[in-house]
């Protein structure tokens, strides 16, 4: 210890022994590295919340808005929202697509991860992984553009289904509301299934190989080993991801619905985000649009706190 200066030693000691501000002063370099981004986040993520005030203002009188007069109107915007069937429709669509994405996405990712985990040939495994990760890196514009070709009335999906006799006439996949949610689900699985396996595969590599050997000695076949060793091994990862996703239940994605949707399916493609965008940027009713967005954020906070509580009770790591 003789070679160390007193100053350097003090800095390395736990913070509580000195005053808070004295320690803070000594850590000015750490502050220099972190406070700019703190300010940045406060400006870009928290300051806009001040804009929620618009949810309580009247933007319907265009003459007044043009003159910059936007009087407060209490909860009128919210009352108006909850009297609108199309707002409830957008909530329904958001929840439906988000649940479909969550269920399809999770199940397919786990399934693929299990299959990949059983592959012994490393080169083949890596090839499958490289190929299935690829769509994750494609932009939604490109994916939708591809989907329009694939699901076109003379596209490969219709040809395939007609070929095996599932359908007689070509189905207009993109133009009928009843298919829209499932189409979004399928496209999302196609795009994200490979990417979704990453976390489960890394959980599987942490499983002790002895367990597989022991199971084999006990006479367990492939399926039984998957059922009794692999799946229990990824259970905690599954639970954590599930809880995290509950906080995002109102995030059904926005790009895909916006790009893939059209006039024919709008009753099924309009999510809360698109509702907000329409009222905010096209109908220019900022008050109502902000109220809808605010509703979404508040539900997200409630879901997050709830999920965090559940995670606590289950003894898992909490999210915040």
């Amino acid at each position: 210890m003789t070679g160390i200066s007193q100053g350097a030693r003090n800095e390395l000691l736990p913070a509580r022994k000195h005053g808070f501000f004295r320690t803070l002063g000594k850590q000015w370099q750490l502050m220099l590295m972190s406070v700019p981004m703190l300010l940045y986040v406060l400006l870009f993520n928290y300051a806009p919340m001040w804009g929620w005030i618009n949810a309580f203002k009247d933007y319907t009188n265009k003459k007044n808005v043009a003159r910059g007069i936007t009087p407060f109107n209490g909860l009128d915007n919210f009352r108006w929202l909850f009297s609108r069937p199309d707002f409830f429709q957008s909530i329904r669509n958001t929840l439906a697509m988000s649940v479909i994405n969550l269920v399809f996405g999770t199940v397919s990712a786990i399934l693929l991860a299990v299959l990949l985990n059983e592959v012994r040939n490393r080169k083949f495994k890596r090839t499958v992984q490289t190929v299935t990760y690829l769509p994750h890196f494609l932009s939604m514009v490109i994916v939708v553009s591809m989907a329009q070709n694939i699901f076109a009335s003379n596209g490969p999906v219709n040809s395939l289904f007609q070929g095996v006799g599932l359908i007689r006439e070509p189905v207009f996949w993109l133009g009928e509301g009843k298919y829209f949610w499932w189409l979004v689900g399928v496209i999302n699985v196609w795009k994200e299934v490979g990417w979704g396996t990453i976390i489960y595969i890394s959980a599987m590599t942490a499983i002790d190989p002895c367990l597989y050997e022991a199971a084999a000695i006990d006479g367990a076949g492939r399926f039984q080993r998957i059922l009794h060793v692999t799946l229990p091994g990824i259970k905690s990862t599954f639970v954590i991801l599930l809880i995290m996703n509950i906080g995002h239940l109102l995030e059904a994605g926005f790009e895909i619905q916006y790009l893939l949707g059209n006039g024919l399916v709008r009753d099924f493609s309009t999510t809360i985000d698109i509702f907000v965008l329409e009222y905010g940027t096209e109908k220019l009713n900022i008050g109502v649009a902000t109220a809808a967005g605010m509703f979404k954020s508040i539900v997200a906070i409630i879901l997050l706190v709830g999920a965090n509580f559940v995670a606590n009770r289950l003894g898992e790591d909490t999210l915040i």
Partner: protein
Amino acid sequence: MIVSVAVVQKKKRKRQDIVFPIVNTIILIVLMFVTLYPVLNTVAYSFNDGTDAVRGGIGIWPRVFSMKSYEAIMSDNSVYQAAWISASKTVVITLLNLFWTGMLSFALSRKEYVLRKFITTIMVLTMYVNAGLIPNYLLISQTLGLRNSYWVYIIPTMFSCFNMIVIRTYIAGLPDALVESARIDGAGDIRVYWQIIFPLCTPVLATVALFVAVGSWNSWFDTHLYCAGKKWLHSLQYLLKMKLATTQASSNAAKTTVDALKSTTMTTPITIRAAITVISTVPILVVYPFLQKYFVTGMALGSVKG
């Protein structure tokens, strides 16, 4: 009795062990085909003759080969401009993100930092709570006046909490002694980061660079929202988005216009769209397989600790 059960079980296991890998391989090959089919389909369209492509039904090989779509793009200045905008914003955003997020992650990985908990909580909350589209729009376009400016691509996307968590988790996995010994030798935190930690973080920084770069390269909504009126600010993805809208509108009338198109032009929005798709995807395809081993560990780190 017991012996026969054991024999049956052994036989069953053997059959399972032979059949399963075969079935598994077949499933995975089919999956790869399903994954690649739309991509190859687009490539086929891009090399197909425009008027012929309107008929549809092209598989993974062009029916009537033609380079006309690419020639049309190559002679279109707006595509060059869009490619320049996309490329330059991607590079700038990636560098800025790495610079700031790297330092922030280091600071937040230091257990003795008294603001660590406070800043971390504020950052992590941003992953779950945001003000929403309209307030953000008002901040960026009105308060900050970034509408119709190149900076709207850069300034609002300089930070992502997920990336911070990925880097911080990686740094936390490095031995504490690295930092401690350097600090005892008298190096300040900034120097410790840039001289010792930063060089060790290359894998994780490569991962984050990939995430940020892909996000920026693939974005179109920012152009749509803030720069739609300024042609020179359009990005490649936005050009594609506009092509998507025009083909969507014309696809219903497509069959009737085939003859009209035949006499006037050799390219159609469908093949042009496919060609721009191919051109805008190639950079990603070239880069990402090389970074695969990095981002796989990066994802695993970030998701669990997130």
